[in-house]
């Protein structure tokens, strides 16, 4: 099947492993490391007789990516053989934290030491004193709770980003409102005939709301599927403060003021309800609380929303009418919804829009997962026992957060870390960093505060990564080296299992150093620390078949299939067939069995059951005096093709695409401030500051700036206090700690205020330095 005209065809129909010109070619799906969401793009690895990876290509057999590949996978060879990669386990004394005094050890010594420390802290301080911190995207990201509960036996898993401002606020909202994990835009990913499959209907309209999925492949969505559909006739609407490439191909672009999404959502709902543009049958049969919602959104007339959002009233009306009229229509809602304390309400509005227009679980609308095809969340939790379970930090204060994701509330964790032995409940003593570099301006607000508290108060730490990162360099006593996606066998499940699309085999093709994958480390370490959870497996592959495939097939079967489209799980309008509820009854998996426009669960948690608008905590409206000192609205963290958050800085071809951390500023503002394009500036908020390189562009409106995140400089001094100059351009230093919503979710990463000041210094990256250090040896 050809999705586009230039698609490769030379290897169509080839088996999972074949020979070509003296090279062994292995087909597989890529997932981490390098970090990415679980999209599982098809790759072919070419390996010579010496076992060396010669090149990577996209696999045209893959039903979704069809041979296409982004730059992060195209450069896997430069990643695998990078001279800075850590290839063996290492140890260091605690007094040498922050110094490059690492010494090679064996896996046995590393595991023995870790098991000994785990036992020591459990015995002396209780298992809850062990804090496991994880990152995002990489395979280890969603394994974070399992690493804590199943592998080490502590209740305290922690994704460190203030307000868990990534994906989970949307997932929580969906769980409570809709009883599903996540309503994803339907791109026929699980259907054998893809866009031409008779079950599928092309969306008339795709709305990108606070999302740019082309570079990010957010949550496992192959973003460029939108282009495939656009080319077949779908129209686009973009709701985004910034101009991005997609918005220039959209018929409608609402450039709202950052952080005001809930006001826009309420106003659109109000138009659709008051003009009776909704799907009456779906509302009557499957929605709960329509009258109350109608009453609430009537408090947000379009004129009011227009003023709040800095939009024209007629544009809001038109957007609402266009969305309601398009059949089917789909909304891809993104990270921007999570990164504000009013985000749960914005998400509630978006789900209400999807529901009242009848777009839930219809072909070309919002696809939701079959209840029998869920995530693995909960592994090892029951074996902790009720006493330890009750000690997970924040369970009393933030049950809607903590009990849902089985994570400690991260803002409370920082408070506890800073308090040390004076912590409110108990001190943290041992730290684990698995697949996270959160000091580098990624998933933590106020990273220097985290750094100082951890270095001072965590007595013993180990980290798992491919690279020495500023995070591990500052804190750890043991380093465990990760293998990459071409060096181990595992399984990628798209959308974290939330959409019935595909499972892919991550097929091992080469061995480099003495590295292991996330699943393998968890299995081996778990056997030592928490055998109760692992001894039932006869080997790693048995564990994998259960943990990743729920014994529906073995890894060996999947390996040969390479991609398994979950055709058996596909199906629409599952609320009619009982496939959304564990009891098999029709309806949604909510207390009322309906999509709760009025949320009984929110009410139960003490939150307003209906959507409402709240200004960002710091904004021109809520803090006009502060705004005089910090006269720009700051939004951060737009995605690039070259980096996955902090990853990729030492891959020369990637670094070349975006060598320095940029801050976008409108030409009118740049003129006023005397900032030239390419000049370095200092950005400062009431909470911190950093230096960035100005990109003068109409990408942002006057009065708004956008700053990139995740920068560190692996070519610079590795040791303290530099830590690869991690503090120099760290935008998360500007983001406040613990300014979150009522349920504990959402911090203002995308709606803050700051000042901008031109500076004379120049920090431009010397690309030849990067090339000499990381590139020449590989090529």
């Amino acid at each position, binding site marked *: 099947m050809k999705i586009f005209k230039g698609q490769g065809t030379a290897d169509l129909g080839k088996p999972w492993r074949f020979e070509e010109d003296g090279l062994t070619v292995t087909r597989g799906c890529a997932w981490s490391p390098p970090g990415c969401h679980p999209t599982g793009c098809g790759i072919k690895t070419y390996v010579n007789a010496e076992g060396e990876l010669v090149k990577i290509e996209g696999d045209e057999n893959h039903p979704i990516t*069809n041979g296409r590949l982004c*730059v992060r996978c195209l*450069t896997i060879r430069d990643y695998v053989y990078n001279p800075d990669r850590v290839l063996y386990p290492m140890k260091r004394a605690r007094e040498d934290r922050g110094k490059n005094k690492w010494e090679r050890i064996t896996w046995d010594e590393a595991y023995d030491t870790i098991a000994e420390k785990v036992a020591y802290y459990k015995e002396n301080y209780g298992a809850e004193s062990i804090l496991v911190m994880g990152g995002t995207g990489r395979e280890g990201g969603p394994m974070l709770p399992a690493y804590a509960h199943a592998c080490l036996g502590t209740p305290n898993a922690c994704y460190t980003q203030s307000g868990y401002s990534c994906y989970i606020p949307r997932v929580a909202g969906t769980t409570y409102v809709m009883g599903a994990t996540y309503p994803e835009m339907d791109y026929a990913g699980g259907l054998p005939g893809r866009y031409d499959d008779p079950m599928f209907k092309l969306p008339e309209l795709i709305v990108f709301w606070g999302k740019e999925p*082309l570079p990010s492949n957010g949550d496992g969505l192959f973003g460029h599927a939108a282009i495939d559909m656009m080319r077949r006739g779908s129209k686009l609407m973009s709701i985004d403060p910034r101009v991005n490439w997609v918005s220039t191909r959209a018929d409608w672009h609402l450039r709202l003021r950052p952080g005001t999404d809930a006001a826009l959502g309420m106003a659109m709902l109000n138009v659709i309800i008051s003009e009776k543009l909704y799907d009456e049958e779906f509302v009557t049969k499957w929605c709960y609380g329509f009258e109350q919602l109608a009453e609430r959104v009537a408090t947000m007339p379009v004129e009011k929303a227009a003023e709040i959002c800095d939009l024209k009233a007629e544009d809001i009306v038109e957007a609402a009418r266009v969305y309601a009229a398009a059949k089917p229509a789909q909304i891809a809602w993104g990270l921007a919804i999570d990164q504000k304390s009013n985000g749960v309400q914005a998400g509630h509005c978006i789900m209400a829009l999807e529901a009242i227009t009848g777009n839930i679980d219809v072909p070309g609308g919002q696809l939701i997962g079959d209840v029998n095809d869920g995530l693995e969340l909960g592994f090892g939790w029951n074996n902790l026992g009720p006493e330890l379970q009750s000690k997970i930090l924040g369970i009393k204060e933030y049950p809607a957060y903590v009990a849902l994701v089985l994570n400690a509330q991260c803002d409370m964790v920082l408070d506890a870390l800073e308090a040390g032995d004076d912590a409110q409940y108990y001190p943290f003593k041992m730290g684990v960093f698995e697949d996270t570099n959160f000091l580098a301006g990624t998933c933590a607000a106020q990273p220097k505060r985290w750094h100082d508290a951890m270095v001072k108060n965590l007595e013993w730490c180990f980290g798992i990564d491919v690279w020495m990162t500023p995070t591990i360099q500052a804190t750890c006593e043991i380093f465990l080296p990760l293998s990459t996606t071409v060096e181990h066998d595992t399984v990628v499940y798209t959308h974290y299992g939330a959409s019935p699309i595909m499972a892919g085999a991550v097929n091992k093709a080469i061995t480099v150093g003495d590295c292991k994958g996330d699943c393998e480390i968890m299995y081996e370490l778990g056997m030592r620390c928490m055998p109760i959870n692992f001894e039932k497996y006869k080997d790693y592959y048995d564990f994998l078949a259960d943990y990743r495939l729920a014994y529906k097939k073995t890894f060996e079967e999947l390996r040969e299939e390479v991609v398994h489209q979950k055709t058996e799980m596909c199906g629409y309008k599952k609320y009619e067939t009982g496939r959304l509820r564990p009891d098999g009854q029709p309806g949604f998996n909510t207390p009322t069995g309906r999509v709760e426009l009025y949320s009984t669960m929110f009410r139960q948690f003490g939150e307003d059951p209906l959507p409402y608008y709240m200004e960002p905590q710091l904004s021109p409206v809520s803090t006009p005096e502060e705004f005089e000192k910090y006269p720009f609205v700051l939004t951060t963290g737009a995605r690039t093709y070259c980096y996955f958050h902090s990853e990729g800085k030492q891959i020369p071809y990637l670094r070349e695409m975006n060598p320095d951390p940029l801050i976008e500023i409108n030409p009118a503002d740049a003129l006023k401030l005397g900032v030239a394009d390419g000049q370095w500036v200092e950005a400062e908020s009431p909470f911190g500051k950093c230096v960035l390189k100005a990109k003068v562009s109409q990408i942002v409106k006057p009065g708004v700036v956008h700053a990139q995140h995740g920068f560190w400089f692996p070519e610079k001094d590795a040791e303290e206090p530099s830590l690869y100059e991690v503090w120099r351009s760290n935008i998360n230093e500007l983001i406040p700690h613990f300014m979150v919503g009522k349920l504990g979710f959402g911090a203002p990463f995308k709606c803050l205020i700051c000042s901008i000041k031109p500076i004379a210094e120049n920090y431009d990256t010397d690309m030849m330095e990067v090339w000499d250090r990381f*590139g020449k040896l590989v090529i």
Partner: protein
Amino acid sequence: MTAYGLLIDYEYCSGCQSCEVACKEEHKIPVGQWGIRILDDGPWECTDGKFNWNKIPTPTRLCDLCAERTAKGKQPSCVHHCLTGCMQYGTVEELAKELEEKPNQVLFVPKPYQY
């Protein structure tokens, strides 16, 4: 002799730069040099409030249209990996027909040159 070229549909090029990097990997081209490069025009606002933003992958003097690959029946590396599928390789005759059928495309007929 039959002439071959690259047809680029710049209405759909998202600027992912997979062509640039796929080419560098295929031909081992160091940083600071390119076999194909995306020329980036925009975004700038037009009078009607819409934005112009076109990204046009442009072969350089190093592009040999992946002669080794195409001899084996493969697509040039840039075409094979393009995330939007906005590139096509073929004879100028075929591609000229495609060009007639859809606007906002550009046809390149690259050949390495020396002066």
